[in-house]
């Protein structure tokens, strides 16, 4: 039980840091502490939060998915590309989801059955998806626009209910569903067991390999949902996002909130705490009009701080070390 208690420790620390940051910004920055800005703040990190929700499941199971953003962009771009081709909206959306699940299953199979390290499988898969989908399914396009016929999809990104933008609702729903899965179902307990000690989990009869397939499929599917939200927000999918740091930002959020890279610890509360801190920092820095370099310094320091804290709270020892660990 000590492990569980320490993760709560980190989540609480991050939440506390967030509260301090909010307090400082509220005093120093005019217009930070307003309802409108709070909405903008949460809205701006909702895509990141959705990605982190999927990433959390994989990291809790002591995995890692470096192909999540490639999956996100490629599958949502393909769905958009299918829409003007006469395919009904629902069919195009379903096709994108099927592709995302397929990518997740391949990731999971390579990791679980071929026993390759997740780091390398997903890294390579990211390149493969980017190249294969772009040349094979998108006709070489880097930019795919939301077609006129699918303007209804823009509701997802541009409308709100009672002033709360829909992406925030989607994030909340995904987070609630993931929380339910992880804390109230036996599959959720299995995922924790898998991350805590895969060998023991297998010995106690947990089907660890099929479970791995499920974890990566869920992560890829959340990536797809995030991709649709992004596509609806800007009426386009820009594959250049794959070359950005977004995938690492999602991992940053997860680790920051106290989901240890050594697995088995943390929960969706950690994702919320991490997302809140990143959102607050980004929003505050934009309002302060800080330069790109300073923003990078702050982000880098926060990530280093989080990993230091993770290391201090969950030191790696011979018992939990594994080949291919990062």
């Amino acid at each position, binding site marked *: 039980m000590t492990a569980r208690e320490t993760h709560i420790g980190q989540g609480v620390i991050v939440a506390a840091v967030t509260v301090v940051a909010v307090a400082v910004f509220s005093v120093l920055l*005019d*217009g930070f502490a*307003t309802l*409108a*800005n709070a*909405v*903008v*703040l949460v*809205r*701006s990190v909702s*895509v990141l939060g959705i990605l982190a929700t999927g990433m959390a499941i994989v990291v809790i199971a002591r995995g890692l998915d470096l192909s999540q953003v490639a999956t996100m962009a490629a599958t949502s771009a393909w769905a958009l590309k299918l829409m003007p081709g006469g395919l009904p909206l629902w069919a195009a959306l379903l096709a994108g989801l099927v592709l995302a699940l397929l990518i997740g299953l391949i990731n999971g199979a390579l990791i679980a059955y071929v026993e390759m390290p997740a780091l390398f499988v997903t890294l390579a898969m990211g390149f493969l998806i*980017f*190249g294969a989908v*772009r040349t094979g399914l*998108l006709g*070489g*396009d*880097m*930019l795919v*626009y939301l077609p006129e016929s699918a303007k209804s999809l823009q509701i997802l*990104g*541009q409308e709100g209910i009672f002033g709360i*933008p829909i992406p925030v609702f989607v994030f909340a729903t995904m987070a609630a569903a993931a929380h339910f899965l992880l804390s109230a179902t036996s599959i959720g307990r299995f995922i924790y067991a898998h991350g805590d000690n895969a060998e023991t989990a297998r010995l106690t009869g947990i089907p660890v390999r099929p479970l791995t397939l499920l974890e990566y499929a869920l992560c890829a599917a959340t990536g797809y949902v995030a991709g649709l939200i*992004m596509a609806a*927000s*800007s*009426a*386009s999918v*820009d*594959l*250049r*996002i794959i*070359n*950005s740091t977004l995938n690492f930002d999602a991992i940053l959020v997860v680790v920051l909130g106290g989901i240890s890279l050594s697995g088995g610890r943390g929960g969706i509360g950690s994702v919320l705490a991490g997302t809140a801190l990143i959102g607050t920092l*980004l*929003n505050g820095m*934009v*309002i302060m*009009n800080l*330069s*790109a370099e300073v923003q990078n310094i702050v982000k880098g320091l926060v990530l280093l701080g989080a990993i230091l804290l993770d290391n201090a709270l969950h030191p790696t020892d011979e018992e939990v070390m594994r080949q291919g660990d990062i």
Partner: protein
Amino acid sequence: MIGTTMRTLLAGALAAGTLVAGASSLPASAGAEEALGASRAAVEARRRFNAAFEGKTIAFVPITMGVPLTITWKDTIEREAGKLGMKFVLRDPNLDMGAMTQAVSALIGERPDVMVVHNPSVQLLAKLLKKAEKAGIHVVQINMASNTPTSAYVGADFYRIGKETAEDIVTQCGAGSGRSGKVAIVEGDPTSSVSMEQVTAAKAVFAAHPDIQVVSSQPGYWDANKAREITASVLTQHPDLCATYGVWGIMQLGAGQAIKEAGLTGKVLNYSNGGGPQIICDSIKAGLIDKYWSFDAKLQGHDIMTAVKMILQSGAAPGDLRTVLYSDTRMITAENADGACWQMPGQ
């Protein structure tokens, strides 16, 4: 010294070869044409023109294919070079800076006659372009300049676009306009010449007008989503914002979405520029962008080939010429948006 001597010898040998080839092909064709009434001068001109390009190679290295600008450039270069009898080579680094430097290094080894490059930053290819010129390759830079000048830069005059945009913003938002004078700038990648020149020019104009206040100048890294997020934050801080100026249209569509979400369409002016693909004209008509400086990408493709024609006929060695061909620009607004943009090749 040895290198120079060798090169002189080589150039001499090449020239002699060309002369012999020219001389051997001249009588038959010239005779036939002359018999049909063509002047000797015209025949000579055509022979010289053809000899300058036939069998030569032109290589194109964009930052990535798959975006409207590069697709259009490639389409025009490939078509026009084909007509000249030149071989066209494309290297697509797919946005990977490492792959781009490798592609250019490999091309230096392959010695094409002309290399057309699209610099993601002012520094990335600076050393390699020098090396390419030393290796005897003419380098044409397209739209995004490097710190190293080469035979030609073909592309928009981003300093001028920045200045003109800022001056328009001053008349729309400055003293006497009855507006707040608040302006937000969405930069691109801060290390790219496109972003640097526009932002420098615009800030210089704004600095001379105390009635204009730049409330935000943040990098959007060419990403529409980032532009949307930044603009949404700025609009909550400054709902009375007068104008937002993004250094690239496709990215600035995100700012347009943020303005629309905030219900401020028409109240906050959205300024941008770019190569003018159809999606931009559609967006201007939908009110997402108000004023757009278009440097027509199709014309730019043609300008690239004009530069290549001049360079190869001039007989100048790589490194001798330092020319600039700024693209023509026109302003697109909702009034003239019909037919002002181009469809992508193949659409």
